[in-house]
């Protein structure tokens, strides 16, 4: 598969005007996003996500390094017709109505009538914006409505690649869940989504692959399923006595028993068979041997903490 985004050694340094020191907002970043995947770009506030995105869009210029988007160098006008962007805390013309705003952006994509009106209607429907709001100025929209309009704006050109910068931050739980579903839906349509976020549960649900950046550097990249699948298992058994539990604890250092059920978490592969043998040897019954799954949040915290050295 072709790369939708390919980044090589991308670097951006800012000069801090007060301390006269250099800030490396993005530091020799390498990254490949394949066509058709929903890719999560994770990092704490100030990690360099927005800076990376703005470089990909030609809004700011790299200090070093290069990147291609849909196979063309940064800033290619033809490519800009096939991608779309929802900025972090997107800002729009407050006096415009939702419809007029989409009409304006559709014109920038050089979409002419009657196609334009059709696209506007479809985009507004796709994001479930209440039709009674279509002809009202954005000034009166709630944050969730704005964000929907922002996504509609990003769908108007039927893009191959959507770049969304923290689209769900600052929304209430319902608006948040709805927006997450809209994004997941876009992914199911075969479009490539580059999703910057620190909402880890969302990312875990929607993204097939993720990268974690910290202090401008890439720390981890991989399939979400692989990153979250731990290499330990959890064993649950029925029956057995305190003596069995004691023996198990000697091997793995953990284990508990209550209501007739024993539970042994975090069993390494080499210990799995010996523990199972112990349980069976004591006349107890194996209920399950299940791989232990880490949440993306645990992966993220581990990665970032390891790098910070704290």
């Amino acid at each position, binding site marked *: 598969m072709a790369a939708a985004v390919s980044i090589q050694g991308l670097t951006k340094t800012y000069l801090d005007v007060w301390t006269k020191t250099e800030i490396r907002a993005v530091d020799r970043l390498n990254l490949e996003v394949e066509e058709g995947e929903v890719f999560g770009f994770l990092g704490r506030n100030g990690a360099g996500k927005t800076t990376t995105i703005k470089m990909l869009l030609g809004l700011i210029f790299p200090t070093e390094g290069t990147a291609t988007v849909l196979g063309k160098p940064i800033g290619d006008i033809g490519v800009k017709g096939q991608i779309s962007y929802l*900025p972090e805390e997107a800002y*729009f*013309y407050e006096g415009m109505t939702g419809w007029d705003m989409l009409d304006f952006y559709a014109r920038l994509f050089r979409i002419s009538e009657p196609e334009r009106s059709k696209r506007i209607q479809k985009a507004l429907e796709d994001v479930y914006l209440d039709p009674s709001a279509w002809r009202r100025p954005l000034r009166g929209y709630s944050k969730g409505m704005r964000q929907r309009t922002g996504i509609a704006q990003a769908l108007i050109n039927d893009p191959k690649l959507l770049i969304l910068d923290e689209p769900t931050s600052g929304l209430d739980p319902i608006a948040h869940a709805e927006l997450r579903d809209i994004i997941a839906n876009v992914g199911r349509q075969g479009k490539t989504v580059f999703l910057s976020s620190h909402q880890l549960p969302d990312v875990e649900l929607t993204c097939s692959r993720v990268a974690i950046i910290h202090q401008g550097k890439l720390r981890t990249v991989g399939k979400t399923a692989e990153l979250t699948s731990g290499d330990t298992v959890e064993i649950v058994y029925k029956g057995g006595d305190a003596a069995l539990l004691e023996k198990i604890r000697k091997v793995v250092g953990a284990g508990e028993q209550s209501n007739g059920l024993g539970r042994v978490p975090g069993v390494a592969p080499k210990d799995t068979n010996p523990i199972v043998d112990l349980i069976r040897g004591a006349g107890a019954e194996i209920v399950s041997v299940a791989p232990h799954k880490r949440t993306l949040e645990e992966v993220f915290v581990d990665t970032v903490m390891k790098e910070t050295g704290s």
Partner: protein
Amino acid sequence: MVTLAIAKQTLEDMLRRKILLILLIVAVAMIALGPSVGFLSPRESSAVLRSLGLAVILLAGLLITVLTGIQVIPTEIERRTIYTVLSKPVQRYEFVLGKFLGGLFTVFVMLASMGIVFLGVLRYQEGRFSPDMVMGVIMTFFQMMLLGALAIFFSTFATPVVNFFMSFGLFIVGNLSSVTESLLENKNVATRAVATLVHYAIPNFGNFNIQNKLIHPQVVIKNLNMFIMQNVAYAIIYSAVLLILAIIVFDRREV
């Protein structure tokens, strides 16, 4: 089409600004109330009415043009609306041109509104139409076009406040073209050098002030049409140069 879409958006945005509407209302009120200055003879009153009308239009036009020119681009950056625009298939020169044209349309709408009221008042007072005053308003429009292009150019690197003073300052200096012109003959080399620089580098805003020539018939312009054409061409060419410079600067600008 992209440039025009941006121009249209800019015009609509500017027409929603209260400050511009207030300026327009005040100016229109002053023009309309002009005839009630009642202690003059009919001949004097006609000249005063014309001077006052053109002066009010110039002053309001000046404020509207500068306020528009200094902010159309910085507002986009400050409100971060520029991110969505420039991430679309929009070239930076199309953006700058669209913003300039939008500002120009705004100034046009404002000047035309004031001009229509002004001509209406004159027609009512004097019982006849005054085509020469139409020329006066048109000259003001081209003068404002040049000033707008200057403000747009400055706005690609200066903050709106700094730009406000730069644009106004250059407008005043540029209006003293008769002074700098006379200094071109000065005996002192240094004076001559400075005068030459100022005279040729700074837009010659003074040339557009044909009010005096229109209002006081004793000042003779040999060929009025030629004079007007020259000024219009000057405004267009100079504005084009300023816009090219604006595009060159803005092309490298990080937003």
